[in-house]
């Protein structure tokens, strides 16, 4: 289990630092703390063992800094970081290095050693852990088999595709069988198809190996794909956190709402509404589609039949979030005005509908 307690990281301001007057003056409404720049601001989080925890936020929100605090690559200015109940701040740097060996890290730009082969890259952390040549090699080959790259062991990183490189990065991070894997935008440098492959691999890492995964991304799609829980960051603060389905179904913070909408693409945008109205003469109504479909669409079907109202699908977006459906459908209703009103009235009492 990982626990962050009121963690703050303030970088000292330097003449070329991002907090200098030229750059840092309130971009994205971020604060410039007196004498420094606060990249992570009073964050408290609990990440359960074996879960996949996503952290989303726009560029500069402080996601990478937060992740680097978890394995103490960055020392917090205040607050404490606990890994399996151990306060990293109370440890010597030497002991911290030992803790880092039980926390793997994966990077956006892979950060593979170019001077080493694929096998050499994966064997490196094992040698750090004190394994002998033969043992390290054997274990490295085993991990490479897990990520499906055993045939590439003798190659050098530059002879691999981006997706393969990231799989090597993941294999290297998993070599010492860590309990935790930290992923900093692990898929952001990859195309959509390769992203899915890497996400599938990470899913296996969580599922088959039981590794706790903390995953940073600016794509809600990634969160939707593999996370159990999510925290949304803005300007150094965690503005919302919760189970992925709940956050998707009921986003509370505007930033979260924007992230969710971009992932689901279910609600028509303003321009789309104009086109929909031009195309459809009848009344337009948006009905949410959730895991308990009875409240929304099933109810609707009965109401439409009872009141003899016709419908056409004008717009829709439904995705699976944590294996459960989520999204909305916008319908054009046709029939007598009073019948449509009756349908909407009934519907509104059971679920939230948006009519225009």
């Amino acid at each position, binding site marked *: 289990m990982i626990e962050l307690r009121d963690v703050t990281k303030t970088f000292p301001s330097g003449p070329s630092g991002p907090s200098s007057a030229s750059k840092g003056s309130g971009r994205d409404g971020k604060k410039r703390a007196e004498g420094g720049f606060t990249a992570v601001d009073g964050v408290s989080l609990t990440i359960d063992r074996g879960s996949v925890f996503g952290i989303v936020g726009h560029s500069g929100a402080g996601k990478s800094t937060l992740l680097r605090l978890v*394995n103490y*690559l960055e020392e917090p200015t205040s607050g404490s970081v606990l890994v399996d109940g151990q306060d990293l701040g109370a440890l010597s740097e*030497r002991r911290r*290095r*030992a*803790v*880092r*060996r039980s*926390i*793997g*890290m994966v*990077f956006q*730009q892979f*950060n*593979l*050693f*170019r*001077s*080493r082969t694929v096998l050499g890259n994966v064997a*490196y*952390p094992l040698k*750090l*852990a004190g394994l002998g040549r033969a043992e390290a090699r054997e274990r490295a080959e085993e991990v490479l088999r897990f990520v499906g790259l055993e045939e590439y062991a003798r190659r*050098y990183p530059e002879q691999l595709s981006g997706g393969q490189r990231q799989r090597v990065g993941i294999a*290297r991070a998993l070599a*010492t069988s860590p309990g935790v894997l*930290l992923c900093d935008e692990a898929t952001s440098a990859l195309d959509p198809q390769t992203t899915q492959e890497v996400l599938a691999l990470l899913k296996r890492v969580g599922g088959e190996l039981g590794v706790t995964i903390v995953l940073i991304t600016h794509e809600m799609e990634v969160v939707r794909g593999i996370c159990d829980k999510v925290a949304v960051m803005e300007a150094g603060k965690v503005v919302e956190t919760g189970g992925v389905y709940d956050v998707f179904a009921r986003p509370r913070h505007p930033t979260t709402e924007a992230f969710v909408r971009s992932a689901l693409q279910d609600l028509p945008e303003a321009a789309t509404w104009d086109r929909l109205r031009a195309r459809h003469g009848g009344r337009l109504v948006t009905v949410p589609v959730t895991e308990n479909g009875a409240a929304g669409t099933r109810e609707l079907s009965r109401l439409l039949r009872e009141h003899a109202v016709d419908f056409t699908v004008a717009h829709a977006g439904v995705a699976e979030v944590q294996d459960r459906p989520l999204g909305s459908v916008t319908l054009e209703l046709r029939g007598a005005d009073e019948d449509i009103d009756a349908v909407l009235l009934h519907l509104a009492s059971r679920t939230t509908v948006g009519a225009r």
Partner: protein
Amino acid sequence: MKVDWNEFWVKVVDATGETVYMVLVTLALSGVLGTVVGLALFATRKGGILRNRVVFAVLNALINVIRPIPFIIAIVALSPVTRSVVGTMIGTEAAIFPMVVVATFGVARIVEGNLLSVEPGVIEAARSMGASPVRIIVTVLVPEALGPLVLGFTFMLVALIDFSAVAGTVGGGGVGNLAMTYGYLRFDTSVMVVAVAVLVVLVQLAQLLGNFLARKVLRR
């Protein structure tokens, strides 16, 4: 008085041997010392893995003082030190001392520069795996920068052949001394031509070797 080439070629071979000896000994000593200084410079800089403002400032200032001094001046300026360390001010050994001093700081800058070119992300990766700073230097930084380092050392090797010739003209041994004593002071053009040819061949060989090794390391 022209030289008799039937006998003089022995002197050329000896002088070439001296030059090679001077250059290689200097390269070995300054290579080790310069690498240590360069690594220290890299590690202690701001944001480095063993940051230490005082050590960095001292080393940096020292290098900036020594580096701009023309080598011929350095030989003369260092000669009292040379005498107390080596025991004499003339000959091959005496030439090696100032060469090592000057080359050490040159190598230090080359090493520092090449280590700086290593992607910080790779260092971050090694840190995240729990590698200690010394371990990172030895097992990550040096191997990752090896290609450019080999080329940097080749550059230094060629510069040392040049240094050795300069040292030769002011009392050091080797081809430079030969060119000075016979070619210049006795107006024997043939000796001058041969001396220059020998230096050109040595430089070529050094560069070829360096390029070959760099290609091996860089795999291209």
